[in-house]
């Protein structure tokens, strides 16, 4: 336990354990050393690899432009850590300040950072998920295996779920000249993250690039041959497709199961923490020695009504890790809040997509620059008379402006006249988000109410 008066002693001789050796864990470790932490630093990770970068796995790696093992994260500095890689954490004893590993060993800490991230949601029918040819895409290993299969020129790839990962996989397939079908439960690709208006643009992009896109449809069965190889996919409209590869892109699951029974407010949507990255316990009381960062965190955000946000964004992982590290080696008023404005990007079908804010909160949408029909535009989302989010297709250089509009709660519809404002950008239209109770691939940012111990979340697998 670190008390206020003993922070200096902790910084000299303390013991920090970081569970999760990916982007957030590594950046936190580096920030801890930058902030002057000189004690013992232990990095625990379930994968054997040193920390690597995931965005290229669905882009350059699948295109065959770089190999999966060349995506290790660049190091900002030496961190002088003890690495415990290849064994996942299996439990947390808050009263004894110990992390239990899957092999039974225990690791004690003075302060703990949880950055266990998320994993790909698997295909819900286990026997089908085991078929040769059925993939998910989250790890270096996943990417390497999928790339090898794409390089062998499969007859047709089925992508299940048209979220960002699914769309990027489909884009890579088309770039490699591979036939691809995308099956999406919602009315359009990216609809959960960006709404129906922008989703329709994403659908046009796919079709223009030769994707066999099928929306409002689910995959009911993946069928293998006697050798256990994927042969066919059955869709909910009765169609049967011959496919030899299926990529399951149904969003991510937070890695919080290891905390069950620990007393932390950990659930399917992540671990609730305060704006200073300190974890809440199940009673909604903030802990002082357990911190959270990255995809696994769920934190209240002042710009969005102090609702808890769960983010699966690269930039959030970096920023939150830095804030968590800063606050781990300080006390009281020296601590600072994590005030990052959500932001993410994607590259698909030759288009750069960027977004800031929380689009799913948007009620209306207004195209402020360019035109949807040209697939080059900037649009803002409005919520209760203010700008709450923005998205750009090949207009990324303007995104900082929109970020400031969100930060300053600028009025919606925006009053300004700017360069490249078109006639169809003069009136807002409904942003057209689907009912959030109907999960598709899931948005990459989720607002999840005000209660730290919010645990409700159900995913309904496709009915047969």
């Amino acid at each position: 336990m670190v008390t206020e008066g003993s922070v200096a002693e902790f910084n000299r001789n303390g013991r920090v354990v970081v569970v999760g050796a990916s982007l957030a864990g590594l950046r936190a470790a580096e920030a801890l050393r930058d902030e002057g932490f000189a004690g013992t630093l232990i990095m625990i990770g379930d994968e054997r690899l040193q920390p690597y970068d995931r965005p290229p796995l669905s882009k350059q790696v699948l295109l065959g432009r770089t190999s999966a093992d060349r995506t290790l994260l660049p190091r900002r500095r030496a961190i002088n850590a003890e690495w415990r890689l290849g064994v996942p954490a299996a439990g947390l004893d808050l009263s004894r300040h110990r992390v239990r590993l899957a092999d039974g060993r225990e690791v004690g800490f003075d302060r703990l950072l949880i950055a266990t991230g998320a994993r790909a949601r698997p295909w819900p029918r286990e026997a089908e998920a085991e078929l040769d040819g059925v993939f998910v895409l989250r790890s270096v290993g996943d990417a390497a295996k999928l790339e090898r299969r794409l390089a062998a020129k499969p007859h047709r790839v089925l992508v299940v779920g048209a979220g960002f990962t699914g769309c990027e996989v489909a884009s890579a397939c088309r770039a490699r000249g591979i036939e691809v079908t995308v099956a999406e439960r919602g009315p359009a690709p990216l609809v959960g993250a960006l709404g129906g208006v922008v989703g329709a643009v994403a659908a046009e992009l796919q079709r223009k690039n030769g994707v066999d896109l099928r929306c409002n449809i689910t995959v009911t069965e993946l069928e293998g041959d006697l050798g256990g190889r994927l042969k066919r996919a059955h869709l909910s409209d009765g169609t049967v497709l011959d496919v030899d590869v299926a990529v399951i892109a149904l969003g991510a699951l937070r890695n919080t199961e290891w905390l069950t029974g620990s007393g932390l407010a950990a659930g399917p949507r992540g671990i609730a923490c305060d704006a200073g990255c300190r974890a809440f316990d199940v009673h909604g009381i903030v802990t002082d020695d357990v911190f959270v960062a990255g995809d696994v965190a769920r934190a209240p955000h002042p710009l969005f009504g102090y609702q808890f946000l769960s983010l699966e964004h690269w930039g959030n992982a970096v920023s939150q890790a830095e804030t968590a590290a800063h606050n781990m080696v300080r006390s009281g008023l020296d601590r600072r809040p994590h005030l990052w404005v959500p932001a993410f990007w994607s590259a698909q079908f030759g288009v750069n997509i960027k977004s800031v804010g929380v689009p799913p909160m948007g009620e209306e949408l207004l195209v402020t620059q360019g035109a949807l029909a040209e697939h080059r535009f900037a649009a803002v989302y409005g919520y209760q008379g203010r700008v709450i989010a923005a998205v750009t297709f090949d207009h990324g250089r303007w995104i900082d402006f929109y970020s400031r509009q969100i930060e300053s709660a600028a009025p919606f519809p925006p009053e300004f006249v700017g360069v490249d404002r078109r006639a169809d950008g003069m009136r807002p239209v409904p942003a057209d988000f689907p009912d959030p109770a109907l999960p598709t691939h899931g948005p990459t940012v989720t607002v999840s109410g005000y209660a730290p111990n919010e645990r409700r979340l159900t995913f309904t697998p496709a009915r047969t």
Partner: protein
Amino acid sequence: MISGTLLNQATEYENRADPYPIYAELRKTPVALQDDGVYAVSTYWEIRSLLADPRISSDIRNRDPRLGGPMITEDEANLPPSFIRLDPPEHDRLRCLAGRPFGPPHTPRRIHAMHAELARMIAELIDRFHGSNQVDIVEDFAYPFPVAVICKLLGVPHQDEHLFHDWTEKIVNALDPNPEEGPLERQRVAQQARLDLGGYLTGLVEEHRLAPGEDLLSALTVEHGPDGGMSPVEVIVTAVLLLIAGHETTVNLITNGMLTLLRNPEILRRLRDDPDLAVPLVEELLRFEPPVQLLPQRTCLADIDVAGTVIPKGAPIWLVLGAGNRDPRRFQDPDRFDPDRRDNEHLGFGSGVHYCFGAPLARLEAQLALAALARRLANPELVYDPPVYRRNPVLRGPRHLHVTFDTLVA
């Protein structure tokens, strides 16, 4: 000092060698209305934000002449504006087309593939220093090198390079907002130079259309994007832009770099022993002595509030990049030249949609040039400091940079 004339003072020739103390005064009022109607923006975050603000236009035709400011027009005659003076969507269309043969995603290896050729050009120029112990870095190196590069890139025959010296100088002179002779006369001279250059390029484009090569002019002439290509006149206007922007700025970057290195002998020694230092060093140079000191052609499309000052619609805005780059709210110890500086997101190449088109080329040219000069000149010293500067306050750099050295290292 009187704040309403600070911008004027900063651009006066007598302050060319060191405008930075005046910039510091200017920064005390982040958005300062000048007596001539220009709004001078001099602080880092305000410049950054305006460069990403869709309410700011680069098209001078959006100016309200009643709001004052010097009228800098170079395009009213026969040639339409180049993309640097246009807003989206026209800007985007032309810049995308110009970018196709120049860089990613369509030609990602263009600049990388020029590495060996650039190194050879540099070696040849420095070899010519043999038999002398004093050179003018500008005339003998920093000018001929980028001209040769841009001519090679565009596909201009080597023997015609000398023609460009004269034309570009006349065109660039028109950008001087504080002229000695009347602005109208300089505008007329510049206009004539643009026409001569345009006429020359018209012939050249025709030659490339008939026999296309690997160069940019050929690509711009014969290759089309998904939505068509450039018209012949657009090719010429774009070529003029690339020709001028592609070397006038790089001359100053290399010369400012050598000057800064000679003023910091310890860093010069480090660069000599470690050529890789050139990469962060050039970034710091772009912050510390940016070749483009200010952007004088932005205009507001609406009344906008910047740092508590409302800039009215149609008003002229000057973004003083050289001042923003030394803003202590953004850069610690900003007046120190520190090639080890981290988090160096300078404004040397601007920001936003008009971010320097040739940045990857300029970086490589300056990195290779400075590393080579540092390695090959033994005990180099400035003959006088400060050097004589060019008149131009926008594209700022020494007119000559005389340097002595003991021997030439092989």
